[in-house]
């Protein structure tokens, strides 16, 4: 599959996974890949986290107003309170909006109808999608458990709330979530036991309980394979006539053993994943840096391009104009 085809399978791509598996980084890499394929991208983030902007080298937090982070890539945050006020304003209910905001009633209201905040956020995403705010909208979802209740909120609300504008909004969101051409979820995990268990559960629940289509699974943080870690440092140093400091051989050996051990564990988890989840899988390498910058994001974007290229093209579903004339796996452009 080519990158353009992959990211335009749906207009909204929700990136979801357990906390700490690299959702934000994957969102950023996905955005770079899409922008590099000539698409306009809007990244939406929800929790006022700083990670996304800093992955693009910006220290300023994202706000409710769109901002350009890189060529072809805009980003913004959406909070429920802002979305609600905007919605009420647009629907000539600004008097209610003021009352809600000033009296603390919004807490009471969101308790009365749980998930109302999620619906307001998703409703705003839906509005952006309908307005074609960008070719691709990437939603950096809340951490796993929350992601599920976040996405289930529409169905739950339609059950609880029988009338009112929130119900209309929830129905609209549900339509978007269950239409694979409009919205899909890209799952992210790392090859470790607990995250693997969780992603399997999340995948099942998303399909069964939410009815949202899954675009694929990104396995993040796989140690790149280094051949030759078996070598005995002393022997190969001797053979090459390279001098080692005292204890250096032990240090090299310990580091090599540690990595091999981790790699074995990762392989076990990869095997479990392959067995448990029948999803297109893309593997991203571990980056040996604590805080990722744009060059790391681009490394991952290239890995995404390679991973996507290895996926088979999906069976043609609805006629999609943008996917026509696709070229085979173009290289990811890192220079602009």
């Amino acid at each position, binding site marked *: 599959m080519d990158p353009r085809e992959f990211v335009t399978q749906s207009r909204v791509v929700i990136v979801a996974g357990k906390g700490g598996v690299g959702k934000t980084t994957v969102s950023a890499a996905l955005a770079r890949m899409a922008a590099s394929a000539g698409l306009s991208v809007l990244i939406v983030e929800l929790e006022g986290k700083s990670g996304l902007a800093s992955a693009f080298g910006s220290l300023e937090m994202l706000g409710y107003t769109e901002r350009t982070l890189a060529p072809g890539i805009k980003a913004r945050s959406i909070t429920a309170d802002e979305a609600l006020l905007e919605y009420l304003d647009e629907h000539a209910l600004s008097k*209610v909006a003021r009352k809600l905001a000033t009296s603390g009633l919004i807490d009471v209201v969101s308790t009365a109808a*749980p998930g109302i905040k999620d619906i307001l956020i998703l409703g705003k995403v839906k509005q952006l999608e309908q307005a074609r705010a960008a070719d691709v909208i990437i939603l950096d979802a809340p951490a796993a458990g929350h992601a599920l209740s976040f996405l289930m909120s529409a169905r739950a609300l339609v059950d609880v709330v029988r009338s009112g504008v929130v119900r209309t909004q929830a129905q609209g969101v549900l339509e978007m979530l269950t239409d694979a051409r409009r919205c899909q979820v890209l799952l992210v995990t790392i090859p470790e036991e607990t995250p693997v268990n969780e992603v399997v559960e999340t995948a099942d629940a998303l399909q069964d309980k939410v009815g949202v289509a899954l675009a694929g699974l990104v396995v993040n943080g796989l140690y790149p394979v280094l051949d030759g870690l078996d070598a005995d440092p002393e022997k190969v140093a001797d053979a090459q006539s390279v001098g080692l400091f005292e204890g250096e051989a032990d240090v090299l050996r310990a580091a090599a053993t540690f*990595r091999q051990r981790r790699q074995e564990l990762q392989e076990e988890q990869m095997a479990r994943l392959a067995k448990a989840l029948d999803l297109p899988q893309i593997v991203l390498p571990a980056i040996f840096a604590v805080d990722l910058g744009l060059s790391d994001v681009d490394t991952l974007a290239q890995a995404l391009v390679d991973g996507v290229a290895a996926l088979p093209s999906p069976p043609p579903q609805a006629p999609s104009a943008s996917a026509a004339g696709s070229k085979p796996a173009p290289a990811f452009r890192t220079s602009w």
Partner: protein
Amino acid sequence: MTAATAGGGQPNGGLSDLVSSRSVVVCCGPGGVGKTTVAGVLALEASRRGRRAVVMTVDPAKRLADALGLQNLPNWPHRVDGPWPGELWALMLDTKATFDSLVTKYSRRQTQAQAILANRFYKNMAEGLSGIQEYMAIEKLFELNDEKRFDLIVIDTPPTRNALDFLDAPRRLTGFIDNKFYKFLMAPSRPGLKALNVATAAILRGVSKVVGSEVVADAVTFFQAFEGMEEGFRDRSHRMRGLLADSGTAFVLVASPRRDAVREVGFFADKLRQSGILVKGLVVNRTHPRFGTGLAESDRERALTLAGTPLGPLYENLADFSQMAAAEGSHIDSLVAKVRAQALAKVPELSTDVHDLDGMSEIARYLFAPDEAAPAPTATATSPAATAI
């Protein structure tokens, strides 16, 4: 394997004092950093030192139950048997059940409790009101403390980005119950307040347009049923805040050595300080191992020079780890500077997941390092952790 040490030269493993002498330890921090595991290890260590310890988790992922070899954890203390002189108990917070029992406790009549428990608004509130889990965690802590069955209570908290979400939970719930909306609703039953009655009706109409009238009706019924119980809740909240600020209570921050965690945890520590609470312990969890003492740059340079030879990959691998350790080290330094905790423990990433008591003992080794065996307050504190491996 070489001992894995990360970060600068700060003292390590000084949490002994906490488990030996405190009565309450609250573990806070961002999500996914291992709070639950650290809480479990603290309680386990206390029981190894002969104390009666209980650990409460809010993590529904059942990791603590797994690690303790239990199938499930109930909402009340369950004894964990093991080869330790003290006692180890564990429970998992059930937010709704805890709230239910509070309602039953403070209701004046049985019918009042029944009306509230059956109300749909109440159910939504018990399951989804933001801050309710934090509130019930403190409530449970308060109950356990009142029972005086335990020498040490360790709780892990919901992953909150803001310390205030936790500390303020009691105040927020009473604020919610004391909401103006509630006052509006109660107004019709009071004499001489006809004007408010009209205003209430107008607001309710507006809100109904948004969320539907059934939802508003549920809320009105709830607040009417709740009448008279606010006082009990308010009083309890006040005492709960007192317990958190008590000198027998210690806060431990758990963090990972990453930029976002540093920022979050630093902010957290600031807020605690502003509330007059000092952070007793800082646990930096899941640091990458450091092999040798070389500089990352020189390891990398050597890897490049030797690229293509059999030594190349060995140095490349070493350089990868040195680079991680160096970056993490600088984050640990800023964590230490920001949090100003009395004790610091760094726990390296283990080569396997922690899923049993052995795994927990492995962690204990880093939390209570023998060289930091602390001003041993009791005779039992002769570092059992060192022998536990």
